[in-house]
């Protein structure tokens, strides 16, 4: 028979387990502290309002200006656009997967979603750069093709796996009796899905939308390759933009000290966006849990 472990060893290892569990707590604290420690001073120096609502971004030169409003707008417009196309497509795909598709096709489609989720964001960006951007340039007459529209197209595809996956799970969790009841009452198949199943799965679908929004707001490398990186307030879908994430990643490697700390400031603003989204997500999930109990 194998020898039992020494008592002291048991206690030590137990402590190691507990410390490992604590690593994620420590990480969250460290990330929050350091992002704000590096990001808040430059915001304070410029002035909160001038930093967030200022429309001029001139990080270098005699009289540098740090207004990130155009970047915030670009992030918001890009995300909203991605949700506008991504949510219906994602939701319908989820409905197909959970309610309509034969097992074989559902399996194949699920494989596609997994691949879509796994493909690196640079590959999305590269596809955008070599296919979507030239298309927009030649067919839609945008000067370079790098545009808000290109960003929206790529982001729409990138949020799909999140939306489909979580919506499908919550659609599947709707009890079979709901469907049977509706059908027995004479509702058609689609009436059952859209008036009974989807409303019952609403909290999960809402959560998927919030998570997808988080992904779109935070996406960097795919966006940087197609957005044009010009921090101006966009007037049309065909204008080049520079969302917060792209602005940080594009400049950080060659920014001077003042410029770099302004980029940390953008990071802090972005982080606040993400925290707010997480709070919304928690509220959505909690409400659904409360509703079911």
């Amino acid at each position, binding site marked *: 028979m194998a020898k039992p472990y020494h008592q002291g060893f048991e206690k030590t290892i137990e402590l190691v387990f507990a410390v490992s569990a604590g690593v994620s707590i420590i990480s969250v604290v460290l990330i929050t502290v350091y992002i704000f420690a590096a990001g808040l001073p430059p915001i304070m120096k410029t002035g909160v309002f001038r930093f967030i609502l200022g429309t001029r971004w001139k990080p270098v030169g005699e009289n540098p200006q740090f207004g990130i409003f155009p970047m915030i707008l670009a992030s918001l417009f890009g995300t909203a656009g991605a949700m506008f196309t991504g949510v219906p497509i994602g939701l319908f*795909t989820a409905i197909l997967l959970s309610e309509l598709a034969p097992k074989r096709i559902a399996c194949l489609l699920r494989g596609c979603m997994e691949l*879509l989720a796994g493909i690196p964001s*640079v*590959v999305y960006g590269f596809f955008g750069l070599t296919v979507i951007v030239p298309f927009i340039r030649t067919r839609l007459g945008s000067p370079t093709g790098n545009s808000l529209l290109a960003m929206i197209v790529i982001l729409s595809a990138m949020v799909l796996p999140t939306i489909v996956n979580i919506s499908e799970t919550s659609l599947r969790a709707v009890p079979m009796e709901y469907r049977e009841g509706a059908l027995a009452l004479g509702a058609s198949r689609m009436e059952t899905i859209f008036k009974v199943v989807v409303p019952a799965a609403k909290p999960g679908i809402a959560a998927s939308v919030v998570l997808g929004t988080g992904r779109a707001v935070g996406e960097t490398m795919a966006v940087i390759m197609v957005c044009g990186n010009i921090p101006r307030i966009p007037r049309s879908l065909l204008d080049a933009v520079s969302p917060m994430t792209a602005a940080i990643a594009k400049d950080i490697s060659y920014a001077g000290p003042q410029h770099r700390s302004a980029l940390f400031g953008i990071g802090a603003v*972005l982080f606040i966006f993400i925290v707010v989204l997480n709070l919304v997500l928690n509220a959505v999930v909690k409400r659904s849990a409360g509703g079911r109990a």
Partner: protein
Amino acid sequence: MNRKRRAKDLALIIVIWMFSLVVVVFLIWMVFSVISGGLAGISLDFIMGEYNLHKGRTGILPMIAGTLILILCTMAIAVPVGIFAAIYLTEYARQGFLVRAVRFATESLSGIPSIIYGLFGYIFFRNVLGLGFSVLSGALTLSIMVLPLVVRTTEEALKSVDPGYRESSLALGASRLYTTFRVVLPCAIPGILTAVILSMGRVIGETAAVIFTAGAVPRIPRPDRVLSSSVRTLSVHLYLAALEEADFTGAFATGTILVVIIAVLNFAAKKIARRIERRSGQE
């Protein structure tokens, strides 16, 4: 059912199928356009060659090495920590404040975008701890990033182990730790393997968090200072080749290799998942 309702039903079904078709077409279009542009650029010389723009050499051996090194180091940190954390959560901890805090932290971590990880790694590991652009900075940053994935997947694997095994082992007089290591963990190995594969995929695909921490030096690091040297991964290389170095042949070929690696990893993860399903079906 009257005719109008039947027509409405049919119309909706068609719309649903068409929307889903859009997804598939987009995926095929993307994969096809990258691979068709990249296949011609892949040769033995490309895969095994050094990278030196001045000499016109654009091989990606350094990037392959860099990617592998970064994967190994990240896994060496994240896998043990993640497994231990999952063991603590499922086998030891009582439901309470600490468990809730850990769960909240893990969920928060998975919602943080990679650019924030990159910034954090840049500020904390590179500047505050003075690790510079290095494999160590990169691996530490990426470890935090993949930690939620490892913890959650391992937790699920541990939870799915039949409680009867645990109880029998404890009833035979084995200690809790002995039960965990000798009985529970072996049963959970396929699930843990899935966690490892999925997080490998994350490391391979990551760019923003890597370029800020591990840097982008396209050279194989010297064996005696692997941890402290900067490396360039395949994803970072794709970004730089396409945007800064205007080497589109190389970018296409690198993209192709990335897509193939991800497809293989996905397939492997699916295979393992199916085996787990089949096994639990037998019980």
